[in-house]
């Protein structure tokens, strides 16, 4: 709101549209990551997954794949990479931070080896904006982002499968006692995060005329930051998808906001970091007092 008062220009429709289009893929990726974090895990490999999926999409487009095929391919490849993470975390039992650190490096370097840093160029006309005009293409990307958001809100709030994620993240042992299979849920959550990343990659790719194999660098940090700022607890089980949406928006607005307030844009990262720390610190304060209340009520707590 303060931003709006200080810089009314900020909300010019044109700028807003392109901002929303650029944010849409981040939102989709953050949706996947939010599920992973709700499940008490973490995934720092999505940036690399994103790059790999983007390149696959570009290559498929060169060979003349239609939009539907491209989406399916991206999500399939992403889901497959997510399944690798999931199998290692839920199946083998390795800590998710290490697993996804390893897959992050592996995917990224495999891609570099394979493509040697080469852009995917000469994409067919029909690739950019799914072959539509720019403005309608932008609306399509935004529409996809919003429908993923809507789907996730529905899934996490109104579908019992979504609630399983919260249950597992809240207390895996209690979840087991309630007849949920925590390992299965964890595995599927990683697969879903991969598929979402694939979707995000294809939504991002259609914005440009070629595919940069370095795309998505740092996306994992952006997504995790949005999830944390959105109020999802890293200890799992607590937080809402709409909060993550707000987190994505907030972080996305910093850059353009700085421009409109005539501040040097280089402050973006610093402000981003400050917001993350503030968000978790306030969460820490409230969690502490909340914990205290819970304890004071129950004197039999051992």
């Amino acid at each position, binding site marked *: 709101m303060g931003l709006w008062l200080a810089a009314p220009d900020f909300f010019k429709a044109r700028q807003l549209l392109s901002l929303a289009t650029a944010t849409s893929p981040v939102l989709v990726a953050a949706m996947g990551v939010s599920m992973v974090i709700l499940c008490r895990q973490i995934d720092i490999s999505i940036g690399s997954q994103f790059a790999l999926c983007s390149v696959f999409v570009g290559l498929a487009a060169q060979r003349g794949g239609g939009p539907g095929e491209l989406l399916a391919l991206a999500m399939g490849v992403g889901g497959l990479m997510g399944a690798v993470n999931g199998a290692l975390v839920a199946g083998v*039992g390795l800590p998710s931070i290490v697993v996804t650190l390893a897959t992050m490096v592996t995917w990224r370097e495999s891609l570099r*080896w394979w493509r040697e840093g080469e852009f995917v160029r000469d994409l067919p006309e029909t690739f950019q904006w799914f072959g539509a005009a720019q403005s309608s293409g932008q609306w399509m990307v935004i529409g996809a982002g919003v429908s993923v958001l809507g789907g996730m809100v529905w899934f996490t709030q109104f579908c019992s499968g979504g609630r399983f994620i919260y249950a597992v993240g809240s207390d895996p042992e209690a979840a087991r006692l309630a007849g949920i299979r925590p390992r299965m849920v964890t595995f599927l959550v990683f697969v879903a995060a991969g598929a979402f990343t694939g979707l995000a990659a294809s939504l991002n790719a259609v914005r440009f005329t070629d595919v940069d194999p370095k795309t998505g660098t740092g996306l994992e940090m952006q997504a995790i930051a949005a999830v944390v700022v959105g109020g999802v607890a890293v200890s799992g089980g607590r937080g809402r998808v709409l909060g993550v949406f707000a987190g994505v928006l907030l972080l996305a607005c910093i850059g353009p906001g700085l421009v409109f307030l005539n501040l040097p844009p280089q402050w973006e990262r*610093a402000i981003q970091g400050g917001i993350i720390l503030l968000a978790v610190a306030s969460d820490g304060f409230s969690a502490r007092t909340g914990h205290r209340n819970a304890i004071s009520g129950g004197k039999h707590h051992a």
Partner: protein
Amino acid sequence: MHDRSGWRRWLGIELVLTLLLCMELGIFSRTATNFWTAQNFFEVLRLSVEIGLLAVAMTPVILTGGIDLSVGSLLGLCAICFGKLWRDAGLPPLVAGIATIGLGVGLGSLNGVLVTRLRLPPLIVTLGSFSLFRGFAEAITKGVDNFTNFPASFLFLGQGYLFGVIPAQLPVFMLVALAVWLLVHRTVIGRGLRAMGYSPEGALYAGLPVSSRLMWVYGLAGGVSALSALVYVAHVGQAKADAGTGYELLAITAVVLGGTSIFGGKGSVHGTLLGLAVLVVMKNGLILSDQPGELVGIVTGVLLLTVLSGELLMKFLSRKSEVRRRERLLKTR
């Protein structure tokens, strides 16, 4: 009673890594040109100092069950601040360097404060400061400024040779590694860190000052990152805001590959050094063998997963045999 003393306990992962290292040396001495020369040996060491410093400082952090994602960003910020202090404030490099290390300790302790006072998960705190520190570095330089033309006396730290062969930063690294090794393995502080990593509550019930020790550890990581920044600047000859991008992950990889458990407690500084050696020798050897440098990352990732899965499998098998042993004992009773 099961005897775990002696080589079995000390040389689990260390043995595996040593074998791995020997294997690398064996392979590369055949395939790589100029691999098996003293000059290359020291060049490898020179290249590994910055990451090595971060990895060594990261080891005690991970031993407590924590993690510090901010060291790479802090390296960047400290490099910029050093440049600023030297060029714009006109301080001599020595004074500027000391001030920079002080700054590193302070910012590292900021992580420590958030982790201990607010009891926030280190992963998230340092994720925040990861952005914050890098952001400050970008903000200070406005994204374009960089610092060059450092005096030769300072550049010697990163480019010079002692006695004609030994890279100048090597003694610094060895000194820090030795100090951290002593801290972790030979002092009560290190013992306390280990106890905290294995069992935070157990450490508390033994009367250990858990929070102040944690502050120490994060402060140390900050200070060593700053030192690493100085070495980096002297090595590269310039200070830019993107210095050390991605170094935190390389450092963590070296630590985890070196047998330090990401859950805390188990691990060693010499393991970290071995893990680091495996990584840098592989990189150097692959490049000298005319293999693409990207193979390094791939092999690193696969190696990390294989080593960890193997360790988990061994633990699982030994626990199974332990249970069987206990059951036998019960039956004979």
